[in-house]
């Protein structure tokens, strides 16, 4: 099976989802879909740094969060929130897939609204991937 970050169907679905998400909030500074093992599938804006560092860090954070959730018998971690002085980073697992959506919002967006937008986007991406002929694998 093709790895998700090289799978045209996954890339197209993720790109479309991120394009829709980008139109919903002016506070969305950066958003990407990454594989569980830290490869970037797609990002917006495309002018954002492409060194893969955010994808790798998001992967590590997701895995550490999953480890904590497992240790405490909480199941799988659905989301991670990093609330900082000038914005928030939110990671959202794409349900049923080895993919994570990671977004940076500036401080003008409420955390609740950002979380809600990202959750809806992740669920939509999952629905598209589930409906398609190729199921993503990392």
């Amino acid at each position, binding site marked *: 099976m093709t790895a998700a970050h090289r799978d045209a169907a996954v890339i197209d679905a993720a790109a479309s989802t991120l394009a829709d998400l980008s139109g919903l909030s002016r506070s969305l500074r950066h958003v990407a879909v990454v594989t569980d*093992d830290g490869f970037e599938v797609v990002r917006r804006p495309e002018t954002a740094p492409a060194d893969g560092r955010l994808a790798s860090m998001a992967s590590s954070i997701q895995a550490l969060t999953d480890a904590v959730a497992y240790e405490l018998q909480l199941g799988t971690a659905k989301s991670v929130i990093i609330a900082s002085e000038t914005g928030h980073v939110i990671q959202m697992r794409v349900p049923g897939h080895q993919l994570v959506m990671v977004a940076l919002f500036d401080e003008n967006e409420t955390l609740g609204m950002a979380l809600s937008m990202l959750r809806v986007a992740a669920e939509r991406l999952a629905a598209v991937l589930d409906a398609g002929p190729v199921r993503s694998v990392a």
Partner: protein
Amino acid sequence: MSEHVVLFAGPMGAGKTTAIQSLSEVPVVLTEAANSDRVTADKPTTTVALDYGVLTLGGDEQVRLYGIPGQRRFNFMWSLLKRRATGMVLLVHNDAPRPFDAMLEYLDEFGDLYRKGGIVIGVTRTDVSSRPLLPDYSEVLHQVHPDKTIPVFAVDPRDARSVGLALMVLVANLEMRAAFVRDPEAVPV
């Protein structure tokens, strides 16, 4: 209680996670993700943040075992974990395409751990590939780092006694330095 913080480093597929699982007396904290890079290492999962285990030696001595991700794109984790570490077990698989290069690359990256405490090298998968030989590793080490004394062992990460021997040599070195040198940074290299 004295405590040592030991990193298990090395390229992807060298056996770091397996070694920690063999040694740890507590369930190992794993951060495995499905491996997309089957070219570099043909294995189903890969470490993306860290592995963590604990080994108690005697009654009052504990070794905290941290495995680092083997892929360079996770090198921010290398920096984070290196700060806490006092020593390193560097695992290199003998069937790697260029095992000497891998060994030297990690020694460059983690060279300050030699000054802080010590480094031992464990050559894994010698059952899969019998060459190069252990003396070949020592020879390369001597050529590139003539000022350093770094023991080289054949290690089976699946075998607690095997990997434990390399760890015990490292711990003995750490203790020796702690006993004779108040400031490990002052140890001549």
